[in-house]
C-alpha cells in the first residue's frame, strides 16, 4: 500500500508511522512523499524512529546505523539525511534520544535544513515567472508556501530547544 504525505515536523512523522504500525502496516520504503507499507500479520509489532543526520557526515552516520543495527534497530530507508529505523516492540526500546543534548542537536539539524530550504525558495521566488495558473505564477506560490512552512518550523523547533534548555537548567542548579 502506498500513502502520500508531506511532513514538516519530524516528531509528527514518527507518531504517524507508529500509528500506522498500530494498525499493522509495516514501512518498507519511501521516495519523495510516497511511503510504502506492507500489511503485517499482527498489529503493532514494530516501533519506528525518524532521525535526521547531517548528510555531509557519511562515515559517522554509517557507524551510528551499524551501532543501532547491532542492538536490533534496523535502518529501513533513508532519504536526504532523514533516517527511518524499525525495531520489534518486544525489544522494549523507548525513544531514540532520552537526553536533552542529543534532542537539541537533532532539532538543530532540522533548523539548518529549513534555513537552507528557505534560502533556496527565496532564490526561486526572485527569479520566478511561468508556468501560470489563472494568471498566477506557480513557482511563486509554491515557493511562498514552502518558505512560510519553513519559517513556522524554524520557530517551532526553536521553541522546543528553548523548552529543553529550560528543563536542563532546572536540573543543573
Amino acid at each position, binding site marked *: 500500500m502506498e500513502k502520500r504525505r508531506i511532513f514538516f515536523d519530524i516528531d509528527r512523522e514518527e507518531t504517524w508511522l507508529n500509528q500506522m504500525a498500530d494498525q499493522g502496516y509495516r514501512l518498507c520504503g519511501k521516495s519523495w512523499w510516497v511511503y510504502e507499507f506492507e500489511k503485517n500479520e499482527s498489529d503493532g509489532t514494530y516501533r519506528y524512529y525518524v532521525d535526521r543526520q547531517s548528510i555531509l557526515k557519511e562515515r559517522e552516520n554509517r557507524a551510528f546505523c551499524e551501532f543501532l543495527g*547491532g*542492538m536490533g534497530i534496523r535502518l529501513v530507508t533513508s532519504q536526504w539525511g532523514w533516517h527511518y529505523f524499525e525495531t520489534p516492540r518486544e525489544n522494549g526500546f*523507548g525513544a*531514540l534520544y532520552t*537526553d536533552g543534548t542529543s534532542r537539541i542537536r537533532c532539532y538543530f539539524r532540522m533548523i539548518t535544513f529549513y534555513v537552507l530550504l528557505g534560502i533556496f525558495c527565496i532564490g526561486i521566488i526572485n527569479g520566478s515567472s511561468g508556468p501560470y495558473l489563472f494568471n498566477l505564477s506557480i513557482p511563486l506560490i509554491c515557493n511562498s508556501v514552502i518558505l512560510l512552512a519553513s519559517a513556522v518550523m524554524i520557530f517551532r523547533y526553536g521553541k522546543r530547544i528553548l523548552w529543553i534548555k529550560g528543563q536542563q537548567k532546572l536540573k543543573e542548579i
Partner: protein
Amino acid sequence: MRDHEKGGALTEVTFFILLSLYTPRHGYGILQFVEEETRGRVILGAGTLYGALEALVKKGWISLFQMEKNKKLYVITETGKEAANNELARLHTVFETGKSIISREDLTDGET
C-alpha cells in the same frame, strides 16, 4: 550526558554506564543493566547511549574490548575506574552529610 563542570560530579547515566562496563558488554547489555539496576527508573534511548559511549571512549574512560559478530563490546579502563571511584567517594560524602542532618532532624521531631 553533561557532567557537572565545577564539582566534577558525574551524571547518573555516566556513572551507571561505567558500572555496567566492569564486565565487558555491548550496547543492548548496557541498556538492560542500567534498567535493571535502577529498577526501571533510568531508561536510556539507543541514540543517547551511542553519544554517551562515543564521549566516554574519547575521554579514555572506556575502550573497545572486542567485536562480536557486528556488535562492539566495551570495557572500562583504569582511568574510568578512577573516575568511578571518585564518584563513589563523592556520593558517600553526600550520603553521610545528608544522613547526619536528616536523622538529627528526625530525632528532634521525635522528642517534641
